[in-house]
């Protein structure tokens, strides 16, 4: 083994985020300019996002869930705090990041000529892991 690294997935590319959300069964809206999100509680401060899943698609959620483009290019999660207790917290975001990273990795590898040798889904105590193995085109 030559090198080993652990990274935290940053959501930056809209395309793979939208694909990831679609794979989870949502129909996200995509807006070039951020638009308001709806909330169950009208007194809550208005939030805006570029990619939005409307509440009617989110079982048990208090409001829409969105991702807003930040000045540094990252897309960050915008959601009601309460919805973290309704199944849309860190675990949900982790699943989004997992699907995003897989899609981004496969697209990058295809574009740069790496060859996908194997894809495995492995069940662990901490949840499912996806393992992708590539070779270098000679």
């Amino acid at each position, binding site marked *: *083994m*030559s*090198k*080993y*690294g*652990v*990274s*935290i*997935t*940053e959501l*930056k590319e809209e395309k793979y985020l939208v694909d990831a959300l679609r794979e989870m069964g949502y129909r996200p809206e995509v807006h070039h300019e951020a638009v308001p999100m709806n909330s169950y509680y009208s007194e809550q401060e208005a939030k805006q996002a570029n990619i939005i899943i409307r509440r009617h698609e989110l079982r048990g959620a208090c409001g829409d869930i969105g991702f807003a483009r930040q000045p540094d290019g990252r897309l960050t999660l915008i959601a009601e705090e309460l919805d973290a207790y309704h199944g849309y917290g*860190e*675990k949900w*975001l*982790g*699943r989004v*990041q*997992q699907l995003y*990273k*897989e899609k*981004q*990795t496969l697209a*990058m*590898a295809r574009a*740069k000529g*790496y060859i996908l*040798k194997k894809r495995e889904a*492995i069940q*662990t105590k*901490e*949840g*499912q*892991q*996806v*393992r*992708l*193995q*590539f*070779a*270098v085109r000679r």
Partner: protein
Amino acid sequence: MQDQTITITIDEQGHSTLDLEGFAGRSCEKVFEDFRGGDTVKIERKKPAYYTDQQAQREKSQR
């Protein structure tokens, strides 16, 4: 020559682990950057093979 393989493991906590085998020096860094994909690196370690493969390549090119 050892096969060059790249293994990326993506978990449900938003982390990914990248293992490179059979690479050395600059080619190792290039592949690492390709697969990092703009993510923030928490841990980065070069394995002993990184240096020994680099040494072997240097010796081969000097022959």
